[in-house]
């Protein structure tokens, strides 16, 4: 029988459906959302023969467990973690065949934070504004997983998986984030700009899909007063009144009223997705 769906056995701390996001609606106040580690999403999708745009699961810290109602090819990537099928160890970072009714258990991340789970055919929930991503800031897309929820799968992809052994960048021991100053670096003192570019910060446990919060030296403003709300981009480093920089991630608000000292390169943000609290962070200015 073929009932193309998976049931949630254990939802985990925070497991959401993610694809590559919801672009083009920022002018209506809609965040871009999407997976925090898009490179990992592309790889797990390739391992099961899906297009890179197919929706996958993004877990946080402690994984999740699922029971497919049909035989399905899966791949787990992103944060390294134990993978088990009916209690038996299975491969991480490779295609795994899971029989109908078997339990696929994705364990707690050994390193890093977020694992990505692709199913052949992709998670086929109804798209909202062109994306199946869960947006935790504005509540668009499917709700985070709860136990016993059932997620539909798309049709089996044609052809064999196109990769066997993909390259996996390991989770970072330290983040080195390339940053371009501006647009509001002139709101900060020269000392603050030097502090930002040279001192070490640490990932705060208050970080989430909206932003990477940092602990470390406060950045002093040269310009007092309020900035009128303005559009915000992915990777913007906003500095609220407490002076602690905050890097905007996928679910960031589309506008904001705190000055942005610089913007982190988009290609460096995938490692941010895997940085556990306490990870050292340095910002390196680039042109």
């Amino acid at each position, binding site marked *: 029988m073929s009932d193309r769906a998976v049931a949630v056995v254990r939802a985990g701390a925070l497991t959401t459906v993610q694809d590559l996001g919801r672009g083009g609606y920022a002018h*209506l106040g809609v965040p871009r959302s999407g997976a925090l580690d898009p490179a990992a999403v592309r790889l797990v999708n390739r391992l099961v023969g899906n297009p890179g745009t197919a929706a996958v699961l993004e877990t946080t810290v402690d994984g999740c467990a699922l029971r497919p109602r049909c035989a399905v090819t899966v791949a787990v990537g992103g944060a390294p973690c134990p993978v088990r099928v009916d209690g038996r160890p299975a491969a991480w970072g490779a295609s795994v065949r899971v029989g109908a009714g078997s339990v696929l258990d994705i364990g707690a991340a050994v390193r890093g934070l977020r694992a990505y789970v692709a199913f052949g055919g992709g998670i086929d929930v109804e798209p909202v504004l062109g994306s199946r991503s869960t947006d935790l800031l504005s509540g668009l897309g499917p709700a985070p997983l709860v136990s016993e929820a059932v997620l539909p799968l798309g049709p089996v992809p044609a052809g064999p998986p196109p990769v066997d052994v993909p390259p996996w960048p390991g989770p970072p021991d330290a983040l080195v984030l390339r940053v*371009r100053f*501006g647009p509001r670096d002139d709101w900060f003192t020269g000392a603050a700009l030097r502090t930002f570019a040279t001192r070490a910060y640490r990932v705060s446990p208050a970080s989430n899909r909206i932003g990477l919060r940092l602990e470390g030296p406060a950045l002093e403003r040269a310009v007092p007063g309020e900035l009128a*709300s*303005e559009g915000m*981009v992915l990777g913007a480093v906003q500095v609220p009144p407490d002076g602690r920089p905050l890097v905007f991630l996928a679910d960031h608000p589309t506008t904001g009223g705190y000055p942005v000292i610089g913007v982190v390169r988009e290609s460096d943000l995938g490692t941010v997705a895997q940085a556990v609290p306490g990870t050292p962070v340095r910002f390196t200015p680039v042109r």
Partner: protein
Amino acid sequence: MTAPAVRVLRVGERALLVELSGGEEAEAFHAELLRRRADGTLPAVREIVPAARTVLLDGVADPERLAAEIAGWEPGPPHARVGEAVGIPVRYDGPDLPGVAARWGVSVEAAVRIHTAAEFRVAFCGFAPGFGYLTGLDARYEVPRRATPRTAVPAGSVALAGPYTGVYPRSSPGGWQLIGTTDAVLWDTGREPAALLSPGTRVRFTDADLPGRGRPVPDSGAEGGR
């Protein structure tokens, strides 16, 4: 006539923030961008995000080149008044309405007349999907945010802050002064377009308690007071 001051700031690798001298100039510049995009003379951009006195262009292939182009643009004409105004029927029963009227130095009834007489325009959206910042009230009617924000403002609340009027698309925390409520559905992803209000939309608020003025706007699913 001198050209309005335009400052083009780089934002990361793929975005520009265009800073105008004020809100009206930002709206005119935004309208100019939309005209150029419709004409096919604007290079591809993923997002055009107007705000209080800036417009963000994100997902730009060659920001350097676009920045140079923008610096050479003639100032655009004022915002074109095209299309019908969206009517939003309001029950003017908000808890902050008496305080707003007192600040304006008028009676509650007169405050309602002031709000329903103005023609508004969506200057920009943000805060939540479908939340528009509407300008149109005279500068003397600006009000501050509440000193203490409410932890939950009901969906459909019509509220004032600074020079803006806004309508909460869904229940959320908020610090704006609540003057009334509407059944109009501001945001419905099952509808095309999902947003009742988008930048540039003209808006009139009507007094739902006046006979014959309380008709819901078309397409709003008036029974769905979310």
